[in-house]
């Protein structure tokens, strides 16, 4: 607790906005100047966020870099920000992706550069703010503020069906948010229960909401959960995602996949689950089942696609399914794995969209049928793509493995009770979810390697003309930090896991205080095979 580090966090939040204001006053028509300002701003933001990482004490419980100021005390909301380990990881991810995003569409975006730069910077502020907010109104403001620049990114700089995609994206996410807003007001009106004034402050509300009656918790939980579930997106609320991703420019896709989807899962960790612990515990198997459905269903969808970006968008559904599965399992392994998987997905799917953006810039098509044999022409691009693919399918040694392994293992051992099924009898929910989820490991390899072969291997097809340039220096600069993150997190994940340990444990302790009482599913609860003779 306390004020250590001064307004460092505020600085990180609002630096991009400052950059946006600067861009606003730059003369129109100077595209390079606008992009340059955006780039410098995002790099400076990243540099300022490094001390956050260095000064963060993972072993300390509570909010760090906390800052609190009045805003509208009579209405009960204020400017209250702070970070825990989970938020810190995602803030770092966001600031890391910031410069990459600006660089990613450097050449591709040529019209309305000024507005584009402003949209990117405002989006960055909104995303960091969403992660750092500790006041429900502040959170909601940042949360909705994310929507507008992203809507513009898709709707203005997207490809053919951009309007449809942008409107769909907006309506989907907005419907959920509105329900959440109602729930926030409910919490506000309830917050005077302990005798104080009504407040939107997260910390105060969190102390009260756990004791709400179960019925109220259920309503509120699902109101929050729906908003977050759409953002994640959880099956069957996912159909906005492929459209938005397909139509968005590369930078939009990277931010969408890299950070914005994580806002949904982050919302579950920070708001929906700890605020309404009993309802969350009740809902956990349902959410876990939806997560598993997302894994299998998303993977199968990938196999049916002919559009590269759409394929990767559906793979996001599968990956986020893993995250939701891990969160619902509520065992330390699974929740930490889920948090790490959030970062992993940001890195590897962000990188995938980056690379697909490069491909699109070169060939101007996303149609898989046009691709083939590109590895001959652009070997470095192919190699990088393969590495990122391996991370995406969770090969050990890359970051993807740690996350998926922890999630599946944690789910397997999670004391979630049993389901009674036809033929199988009484089966531990955790075991069942974990086993079905593990098939995602197979399916992931099926569709990702199919994609790689289709694009890079085999004889050269239409899109692979000779003379396509390989990765340029600018493109290397973008992709190198992501590659480094893939390897570093894969080889030495402890610092990243350490950051999420305390928030994860607190979450579990809050939602499942009776964990110790429930037996872990032992042999007796597994099925006994025929032919057993002792």
């Amino acid at each position, binding site marked *: 607790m306390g004020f250590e580090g001064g307004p460092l966090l505020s600085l990180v939040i609002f630096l991009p906005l400052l950059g946006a204001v600067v861009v606003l006053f730059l003369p129109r028509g100077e595209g390079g100047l606008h992009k340059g300002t955006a780039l410098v701003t995002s790099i400076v933001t990243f540099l300022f966020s490094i001390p956050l990482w260095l000064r963060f004490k993972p072993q300390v419980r509570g909010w760090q870099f906390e800052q609190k100021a009045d805003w509208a005390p009579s209405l009960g909301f204020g400017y209250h920000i702070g970070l825990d380990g989970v938020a810190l990881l995602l803030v770092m991810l966001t600031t890391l992706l910031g410069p990459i995003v600006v660089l990613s569409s450097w050449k591709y975006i040529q019209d309305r550069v000024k507005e584009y730069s402003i949209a990117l910077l405002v989006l960055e502020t909104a995303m960091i703010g969403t992660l750092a907010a500790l006041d429900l109104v502040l959170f909601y403001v940042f949360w909705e503020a994310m929507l507008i620049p992203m809507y513009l990114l898709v709707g203005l700089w997207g490809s053919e069906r951009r309007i449809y995609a942008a409107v769909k994206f907006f309506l989907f996410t907005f419907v959920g948010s509105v329900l959440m807003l109602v729930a926030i007001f409910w919490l506000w009106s309830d917050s005077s229960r302990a005798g104080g004034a009504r407040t939107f402050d997260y910390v105060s509300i969190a102390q009260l909401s756990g004791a709400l009656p179960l019925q109220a918790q259920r309503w509120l939980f699902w109101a929050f959960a729906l908003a977050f579930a759409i953002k994640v997106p959880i099956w069957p609320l996912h159909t*906005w995602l492929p459209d938005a991703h397909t139509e968005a420019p590369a930078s939009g896709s990277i931010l969408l996949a890299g950070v914005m989807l994580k806002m949904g899962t982050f919302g579950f960790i920070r708001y929906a689950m700890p605020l309404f612990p009993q309802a969350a515990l009740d809902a956990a198997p349902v959410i876990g089942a939806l997560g598993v459905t997302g894994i299998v269903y998303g993977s199968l969808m990938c196999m049916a696609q002919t559009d590269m970006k759409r394929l990767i968008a559906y793979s996001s559904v599968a990956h986020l399914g893993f995250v939701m599965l891990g969160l619902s399992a509520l065992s330390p*392994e699974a929740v930490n794995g889920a948090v790490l998987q959030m970062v992993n997905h940001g890195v590897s799917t962000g990188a995938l969209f980056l690379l697909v953006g490069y491909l699109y810039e070169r060939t101007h098509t996303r149609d898989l049928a046009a691709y083939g044999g590109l590895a001959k022409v652009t070997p470095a691009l192919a190699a990088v793509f393969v590495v990122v693919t391996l991370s995406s399918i969770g*090969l050990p040694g890359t970051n993807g493995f740690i996350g998926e392994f922890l999630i599946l293992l*944690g789910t397997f051992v999670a004391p979630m009770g049993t389901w009674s099924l036809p033929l199988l009898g009484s089966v531990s929910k955790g075991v069942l979810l974990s086993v079905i989820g593990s098939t995602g490991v197979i399916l992931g390899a099926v569709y990702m390697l199919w994609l790689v072969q289709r694009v890079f291997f085999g004889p050269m097809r239409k899109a692979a003309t000779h003379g396509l340039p390989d990765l340029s220096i600018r493109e290397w600069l973008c992709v190198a930090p992501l590659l480094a993150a893939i390897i570093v997190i894969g080889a030495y*994940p402890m610092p990243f896991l350490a950051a999420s340990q305390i928030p994860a444990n607190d979450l579990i302790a809050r939602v499942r205080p009776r964990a110790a009482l429930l037996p872990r599913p032992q042999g007796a609860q597994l099925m006994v095979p025929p032919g057993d003779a002792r």
Partner: protein
Amino acid sequence: MEVGWLYLIPLLPLLGAAFNGLAGRWVPKSWVYTVALVVVLLSFLIGFAGFVQMSGEEGTQFHETVYTWFAVGSLHVDLALSLDRLSGALVLVITGVGFLIHLYSVGYIDEDPGYWRYFAYLNLFVAAMLLLVLGDNLVAMFVGWEGVGLCSYLLIGFWFDDDAKAYAGRKAFIVNRIGDFGFLIGIFILFNATGHVDFAGMRASPLPYAVAMWAAGLLFLGATGKSAQLPLYIWLPDAMAGPTPVSALIHAATMVTAGVYMIARLSFLYVQAPGILALVALIGCLTAFWGAIIGTAQNDIKKVLAYSTVSQLGYMFIGVGVGAFFAGTAHLITHAFFKACLFLGSGAVIHGLHGEQDIAKMGGLKKYMPHTAITFAIATVAITGVLPISGFFSKDEILAQALNTSAFKFLTLTPDPTGPRLGFLGPLIYVLGTVTAGITSFYMWRCYLLTFHGNYRGPEDVHPHESPAVMTLPLWVLAILSVVGVVLVLPIHDFPWSWEHFTDGLFAHARGGAPGEYLPPLVTYGIAVVVAWVGFAGAWTLYKPARNIAGDVAFERATPRLRRALVNKLYVDEIYDVVVVRTVWRGARLLWRVVDAAIIDGLLVNGSAQLVAAIGALGRRFQNGNVQRYAAVTALGVAALVYLLLVRT
């Protein structure tokens, strides 16, 4: 004993891979070769030194915790390595045979522009394989397990501009992943039951029977994937699309034996699950037979060897399945020698014929490439067992153990404890295994005779030539190893070099007690020799040098249906294609069209949007722009309000 240098063994090849992969394209060729060879050699030397040190005293084990990889909740995963007699021997095989194959590759891949990539992959493979073998917990082992799968994928699809080859690589990876799925669940079960993932911790906790059964069974699913057993063997023949040295190293000598190694390493688990042991032995036996009969009708020299590998791996699984872990692993080592030699020999042939792989277009090559012919013959002798060198004894030990095993005597077929028992399984496996040995002898000699004897049947413009010394040298070393490897498996009790004696106490003992004795050893040897010679005689009759390819025609004429089925690999690929592959892909497309596009997006999402639009269209009819109509409606509203507010109250 804790040591501080074990990490070097896998790290050195990894560094070599990193160097070759990142810089290999720009540095001179000789640097690439030097680095690739030196790192493997250094690994070998370190492993050798460690092995000598460790094997001096029985029960010594070197252990090293490199660092804590990840630790969350009750899960604690170290990157820990351990060197005991089993892993030590395998390290020597991997780095030793690996070094020879690296050396051979210098000659083989020299003309390919992707040589630097090749050596990077190869080094990476050695590193992953060493990690698999040295890993002291299941997760570290899994890293190597998947790592070798990755290298296999990359190397099978090395010539990626051929769609078929890229497809073969992908197929290998995905089939392996199906196995890895089982492996992963196996890890979860063991962790759930014991709270550990490291071998020592798991060994210390006794397991409930059902848990042991499930864990062992699922890990075995992993083994069937990696080690190409029924029903997941289908990737291995296709894996021959890769460069031949790769087939020798990965798809014969080392990676594919990982399943056998894993079961031997987890012997303490498998003896707790005797039913799964029986399954292992049965699957091994069936695979051995299955691979052998398909091998009789293949004309691609590498496919013959691939099915031979599938078949020989089956033998190893019989060994570990009947509880004779030493026998299975001994065959693993001898097989590494002679099969690597065979593959390298086939590579030399292919190299000498500029890429020709069809044995129907070879013949008489003994004349042109004598070194290759002789070493190939030696290795063929070893695998078929016509003379008592390494392969003979290691295979015979497995079959004898299967015949005499007591591991299945107490197993029942049904849950009813008084039901029929599985004691017949051992002898059954013995009989089928012996028949398979005869078939093995037949198809291996067929391959040898068709390749090296008779008349040259290839095109005129191809002039077969012997390979350079850098390639023949490894052939000779491996041929010699195939012969002298016999010292490991000589059936002399307390022989100091004997593998059985050497690994005493390393493996757990199967339940059911010591093996009985159906037949005295000399009788089984006699049977084995006779069977091997019968196979040879069959091959000689059909394919003796003067007849050239006529043997196949005779075969075809005798049993046309069977032979066509065998040539087409018993249509397994086609069946899988229809039943699994197409079903899944079509199902995915159907699911997309129906559920995603039609129901969720069409009906629910766009449907609700259209509902709103329809309501809006209905409301629009009132907004017809006629101000007077608005005023009239307003008046009506006011009338209603007045009535409601003033009159009704």
